[in-house]
């Protein structure tokens, strides 16, 4: 497939039909990964998390809930083998359609050759659907209450898609035969489409994992319980949003976690100059070996997860930890305080843990910037009679300010997102009041208590406010520095 510059020959009507054709193929490709559209869920006993794709490659997940039914002989194993093979056949059919869809962006010769794939693919899909139907009939005849048969919604969807692909392909083949313009000598595709097809799988992944979750915002408008379904009956409109502001306890909770979130972010911002100071003072040390030593060991904690930091905290501060041991064994006292079981000064403690983990690492960026400062600036300052501190304050600091400013703006934009892992691992009954931040609250509420709609609503607020803050910070940066930070 060498790049060509010439426009592919393509009839106008064919173009429209091709769009329909490709959309049908794309939908089919997407639907095989979505368990809700599994056409093979012919009994409610099949795991609801199994997609057509999973069913086609993994017999064990297909029958994961059916072991007993198979053992007792309520249903035949052959039924499910048939089901799996049929699923595999449908997947193969869709892969063929996808190949044809990709070839449809090539030149006419390639398009013509490519049309055979969806023609065959859609017929194969129909065959697979017939196989699933036979398996369904077998389950209906088995007629046990334990394994009730049902017609899955995905079956209709895939039948419609197969039909759509088949008919668009037939029409396109007819249009292609009628088009008497000469074919090119070789199959070719314009480079721009070729590259796009290569990028397409990556875009699809980004769409599925970053954009599709937005569709989940609809849960905030329903009275949804885990495992239930969204129906017109449990649509509640803005109920959760009004509860958020009107319900006394909820409002109290929100205010509490917001206070914790903002306080800890504010402490972080107020101390955000410390890495810069760390870097400036460290570069004042004469011995290169010492600087290297400090840099190496102070950056290590940054690469350890918060669970390990918590393990360290336990080893040092718990009842049988280092501090108590030190007092008892070295100083000869008798102490058994568990310093972690106390809710006092949580904000400060969290700040200190964050600093222990991150200070050395955050300083690296400034250390590198200092190495890059033009030495003539220092020489000029020396000529003017500046002493060491005057040089640090009047040369080094101004040179580092742009970096500091960018990082500061970013931390202001992230004021609501201080992550949850640190606060989760350190939380215990005594400190929940002053430790719980917004991210952790959403986690506890949604995953812990199963209050999906409410936690989704709070998450929506957070996402929107974060974006506004980010754009605000960006505007400030553009105004002051003429550069954007995103």
């Amino acid at each position, binding site marked *: 497939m060498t790049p060509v510059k010439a426009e592919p020959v393509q009839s106008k009507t064919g173009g429209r039909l091709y769009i329909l054709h490709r959309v049908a193929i794309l939908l089919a490709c997407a639907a095989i990964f979505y368990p809700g559209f599994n056409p093979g869920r012919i009994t409610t006993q099949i795991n609801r998390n199994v997609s057509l794709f999973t069913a086609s490659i993994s017999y064990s997940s297909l029958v994961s809930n059916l072991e007993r039914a198979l053992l007792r002989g309520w249903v035949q194993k052959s039924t499910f083998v048939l089901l799996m093979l049929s699923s595999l056949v449908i997947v193969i059919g869709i892969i063929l359609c996808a190949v044809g869809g990709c070839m449809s962006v090539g030149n006419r010769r390639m398009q013509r050759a490519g049309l055979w794939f969806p023609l065959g693919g859609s017929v194969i899909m129909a065959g697979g659907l017939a196989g699933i139907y036979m398996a369904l009939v077998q389950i209906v005849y088995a007629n046990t209450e334990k394994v009730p048969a049902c017609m899955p919604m995905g079956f209709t969807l895939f039948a419609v898609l197969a039909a759509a692909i088949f008919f668009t392909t037939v029409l396109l083949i007819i249009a292609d035969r009628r088009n008497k313009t000469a074919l090119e000598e070789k199959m070719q595709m314009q480079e721009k489409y070729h590259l796009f097809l*290569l990028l397409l799988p990556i875009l699809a992944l980004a769409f599925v994992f970053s954009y599709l979750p937005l569709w989940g915002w609809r849960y905030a408008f329903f009275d949804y319980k885990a495992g239930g379904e969204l129906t017109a009956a449990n649509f509640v409109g803005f109920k959760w949003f009004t509860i958020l502001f009107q319900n006394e306890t909820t409002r109290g909770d929100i205010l509490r976690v917001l206070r914790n979130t903002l306080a800890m972010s504010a402490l972080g911002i107020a101390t955000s100059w410390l890495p810069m100071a760390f870097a400036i003072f460290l570069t004042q*040390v004469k011995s290169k070996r010492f600087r290297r030593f400090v840099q190496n060991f102070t950056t290590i904690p940054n690469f350890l997860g918060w669970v390990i930091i918590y393990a360290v905290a336990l080893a040092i501060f718990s009842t049988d930890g280092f501090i108590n041991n030190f007092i008892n064994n*070295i100083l000869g006292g008798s102490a058994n305080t568990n310093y972690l079981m106390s809710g006092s000064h949580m904000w400060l403690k969290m700040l200190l843990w964050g600093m222990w983990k991150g200070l050395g690492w955050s300083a690296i960026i400034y250390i590198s910037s200092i190495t890059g400062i033009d030495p003539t600036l220092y020489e000029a300052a020396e000529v003017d009679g500046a002493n060491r501190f005057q040089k640090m304050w009047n040369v080094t600091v101004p040179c580092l300010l742009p970096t500091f400013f960018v990082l500061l703006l970013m931390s202001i934009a992230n004021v609501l997102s201080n992550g949850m892992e640190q606060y989760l691992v350190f939380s215990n009954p005594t400190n929940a009041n002053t430790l719980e931040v917004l991210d952790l609250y959403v986690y506890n509420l949604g995953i812990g208590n199963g209050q999906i709609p409410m936690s989704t609503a709070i998450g929506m607020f957070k996402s929107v406010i974060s974006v506004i803050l980010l754009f605000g910070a960006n505007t400030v940066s553009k105004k002051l520095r003429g550069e954007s930070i995103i």
Partner: protein
Amino acid sequence: MAKTKRTGIRRDNSVGDKVFNVVNITFFTLFTLICIFPFYYLLINTISNNDLVGKNLITLVPKGIHFSNYVALKDVADFGNSVLVTVSRTILGTTLMVLVSAFAGYLTTKHELWHRSLWYRALVITMYFNAGMIPWYLNMAGLGLTDNYWGYIIPGLVAPYNIILVKTYIESIPPSLEESATIDGASAMKVFTNIILPLSKPILATIAVFGAVANWNSLQDSLILMSNSPQLYTMQHRLWMYLNTSSNLAAAMQSGGSVSSGMLNTKVIKYTISMVTIIPIMLVYPFMQRYFEEGIMLGAVKG
């Protein structure tokens, strides 16, 4: 990063200067000690006589050194399993993420790409905006990726920040190299595998190192996605459970039959497990440090 000669520092020998030097060096020595000591303390408690550790008698120096605690860990069944999960996801997840980032980074440098800037922006925006944890979880559940090992791997494949880093790096490679290959008739894929991949090794190493550390330390996705599949818990998740409730650990030890090995002391085994999760990072750190530092500098250039 510290280059050979520190410029601009004249060595004054005034008293104030000397005091400053002493205070400065003392501070950094202390801070470094605070950073290292906890790991030393954990270590000496895992290799000292278990009875002494149980009586809280090991404070500054190890006594009765032995390494049987590390050997005995093999009997803690759940933990061994979680190590497998974490190691495999670190290797598999990181490799795939690097390949995807490299490929996406390369494609987005190609001006011929159909609607290039649109797709690039669509990838970058996901860095700044997300729907939130719960919608993400619901989406994963809908895709069948909860209680499923692939739930660790697939969502991490497209890492927008790494794509930006790779793209910026590839843009700095002289275009003539690629052009000459294209003239010789090499396809985009061939240019990618034969020219771009070898030339962008430094940046790929950097994102690989960061990706591996993130996988190694992963807790959140294990907590959210795998709640019904204890066999899929990551190492950090297991460690956290052991740290929180000794009964978890006692149960695991009993099922593994390690009671006979004299490790009744849950404190020792907690410390040993912690060390096992720390040691690999400590071991690779010196070799990887260059890449860590390059990574943060690249981020700064981008920022």
